[in-house]
């Protein structure tokens, strides 16, 4: 029904425009019927250009006012997070300034120099000095941004093995995630998808003969001890996936046939994050939205939505097939003790195999 209505409305708009133009044309019968802009058009369009500048500024302000809390530029939960956030804010500020000035010049000139019959434009073809200036300014600004960016990037991507990071494998398959902990020895057992044996529940293809594999632990939730560096080794068994952990400012693709890696140190536990004033507000707002949605659902006789509680998430961020939109894993950052306690409850690989 809504579809039919939309089509009818579109049809109505089309007819209205057609009629409007007919009226425009009729009104101009005795005047200028050429389809080239005249002084009147120049004037109207010039003012509209000025109005459009207002629109661009307006939508910028409205967006920041309404959705300024959405961007992830604060409350990062990893050690390198604030570095990325700072670089992001600096870049955004530069962009914002350039955007404001150039859009002003563009639209203001379009308004100021709107054409009039009989006036002649200034013949102004070149100015080497001016062009040099606006080549060199971007060069300097960009040089700064490039340097800052490269230092940050190198800092994030260089894994310091001396930190003795906790090694965890993130294993991707259509359409879920698994985590594999290296166990006591902190060395992941050898693995290859060719060794997968569903009959004895060797689902990640670990080498059953490898001593390092015996104490590995496979889980469907990712628990991380706060304050300890973690080195993630990513693997995929079927297609490309991407392990995206937005709150930790971390992402790396999972590529079948090779092992990729990304390291970071979580700094804020899930519990602490839930109490963070910004996050608290965000969750409250989301729950308000969910309650409203639930009311509509219940009116239709459907199940209401669950109340939302904040959790860190690992999302798939590389198109991977039909259920790509729902490939996620919960991440829990907790104290060392809680983490150890949780780990104790998990089954070791050697004990998880089914004997036939």
């Amino acid at each position: 029904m809504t579809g039919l209505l939309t089509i009818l409305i579109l049809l109505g708009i089309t007819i209205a425009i057609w009629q409007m133009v007919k009226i425009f044309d009729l009104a101009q019968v005795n005047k200028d019927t050429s389809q080239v802009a005249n002084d009147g058009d120049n004037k109207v369009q010039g003012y509209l250009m000025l109005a459009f500048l207002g629109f661009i500024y307006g939508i910028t302000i409205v967006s920041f006012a309404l959705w300024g809390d959405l961007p992830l530029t604060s409350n990062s939960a990893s050690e390198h997070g604030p570095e990325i956030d700072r670089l992001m804010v600096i870049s955004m500020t530069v962009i914002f300034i350039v955007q404001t000035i150039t859009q002003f010049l563009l639209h203001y000139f379009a308004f100021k120099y709107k054409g009039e019959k009989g006036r002649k434009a200034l013949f102004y073809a070149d100015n080497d000095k001016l062009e040099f200036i606006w080549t060199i300014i971007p060069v300097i600004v960009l040089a700064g941004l490039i340097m800052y960016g490269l230092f940050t990037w190198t800092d994030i991507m260089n894994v310091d093995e001396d930190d003795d990071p906790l090694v965890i494998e993130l294993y991707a398959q259509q359409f879920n995630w698994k985590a594999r902990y290296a166990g006591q020895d902190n060395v992941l057992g050898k693995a290859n998808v060719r060794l997968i044996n569903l009959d004895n529940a060797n689902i990640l293809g670990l080498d059953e003969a490898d001593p390092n594999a015996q104490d590995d632990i496979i889980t469907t939730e990712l628990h991380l001890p706060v304050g300890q560096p973690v080195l993630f080794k990513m693997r995929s068994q079927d297609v490309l996936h991407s392990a995206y952990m937005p709150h930790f400012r971390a992402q790396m693709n999972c590529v079948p046939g090779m092992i990729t890696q990304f390291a970071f140190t979580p700094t804020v536990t899930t519990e602490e994050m839930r109490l963070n004033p910004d996050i608290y507000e965000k969750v409250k707002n989301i729950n308000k939205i969910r309650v409203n949605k639930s009311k509509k659902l219940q009116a239709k006789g459907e199940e209401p939505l669950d109340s939302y509680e904040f959790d860190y998430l690992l999302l798939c961020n590389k198109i991977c097939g039909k259920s790509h939109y729902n490939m996620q894993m919960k991440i829990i950052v907790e104290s060392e003790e809680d983490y150890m306690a949780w780990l104790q409850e998990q089954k070791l690989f050697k004990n998880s195999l089914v004997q036939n």
Partner: protein
Amino acid sequence: MSAQVDTHAHEDDHGHHPKETFITKYIFCQDHKMIAKQYLITGLIMGVIGVLMSLLMRMQIAWPTEPNVIFELLLGKWAPGGVMDADIYLALVTIHGTIMVFFVLTAGLSGTFSNLLIPLQIGARDMASGFLNMVSYWLFFLSSVIMVCSFFVEAGPAAAGWTIYPPLSALPMAQGGSGMGMTLWLISMAIFIASSLLGSLNYIVTVLNLRTKGMSMTRLPLTIWTFFITAVIGVVSFPVLLSAALMLIMDRSLGTSFFLSDIFIQGEVLHYQGGSPVLFEHLFWFLGHPEVYIVILPAMGLVSEVLATNSRKPIFGYRAMIASILAIAFLSTIVWGHHMFISGMNPFLGSVFTFTTLLIAIPSAVKAFNWITTLWKGNLQMNTAMLFSIGFVSTFISGGLTGIILGDSALDINVHDTYFVVAHFHLVMGISALYGLFAGVYHWFPKMFGRMLNKNLGYIHFWVTAVCAYGVFFPMHFIGMAGLPRRYYTNSNFPLFDDTTNVQILITIFALVGGAFQLVFLWNFFYSIFYGKKAEQNPWKSNTLEWTTPVEHMHGNWPGQIPHVHRWSYDYSKPGHDEDFVPQNIPLKEGEEESHH
């Protein structure tokens, strides 16, 4: 190097051509002006399909899993009960991207205007090879038909994203669309690339060899410079995509392992060993990135021309404009890795690509500043084409600036593949290039069809489009920075993103209104072809040679001799002349100096 065609036979038009039939005039035509029109109309049809797909996607994202009659009507079995299927959503994502990038903004934009303007603006009777030109169009037509047909195969069209990364695109068991749909996609693209190469080679040869007497490279309008360099980039990079496509076909059908290794899917291990999907990404983006410049450079050329003509001023910094085109073309071939910062390639490569990528901002900034300065102290004639050109500069700046964030590897970690990327490239290459296309159509419509487009309809079209384009893509940056991944069929499985729902709905409303108002353009376009006001020979008082040809099209373009060129194309409002324009074929007055030397 001023190439000339000195043979008398070419300089004069003999006027006795073989008799034309309907088929040789409208279908298998070798005249560049007709081929341009064929490209344009095919491009427009593909554009309607591509935009319609984006509207379906937007409706799905705003109102996920709600039954919608339009879905049922247009998608048939892919929307049982009016609820869109997740597979077809990804197919829409894929085919929308493919159609818009290649079929609309490459063939529809560059194909149309390179064909129309190269011979007319350099003073040539036609393309170097009319026959190849015709073959190029018909290959494009064939590839369009195959691409559209792929929507009707049993398991659905290709659905692995327009980047068709393997293994998803290589394995039919990974996704329904990776069966027959992907085969058709690959065949269609292979034919498209052949078409594009034939076209590009023709453009290059024509520009280098068929310029009229006096038309030196530094007197060429910027349109020709951009078409020329675009063709060069195309010739350099499209063959790499072709090879990637062929290797993918071999992986799919002949059991090779170029891109595949160690795969376990649906309970079985596949035989592939030793290949790497990352190799495909390298090959794909070696075309994929230059491709965005293949799309945007012709738009830049058209906009430069329209801005100068309608400002009644020379384009500011002509030589700097050419230099920046060359710089962009060169840099565009060494930045592809910025699409792959987190693909698993060596982080050191990421550093290199960050460096080269941010360098591209410099020539881009020079261009933007030069356009703005072109307006300064002009006498702006606000024709629709001018509005779209100003709009182009606006969206090019807005979209281009966020490239500084995405090109920075450290920042890309957290916004990669989110809506932030979607907002960025739609503004900087989607909307901008479309504006370039519209500017071109509004400006050269009189040349193509001998009639004028209605200006009031043009104004309505521009303003609604301009407002809606920002309405769609400006807020999108915010949901992207919130960490919302693109290509999700619905976000309702992530309560985390519930606070973006209202933004999504707002975006969709802007998209629907903007999309609907493209009908105004289509109406104006097709109505004016037949009933528009008859055009004068040079309605915009422009300097370039195409406006010295008769309004009625003829083979060979000029009835008598090809005009000789005596000056560059930007002598607008030159002191010492009564009119505010001096066409290129007017000899220098005694004592007059050529402007830009």
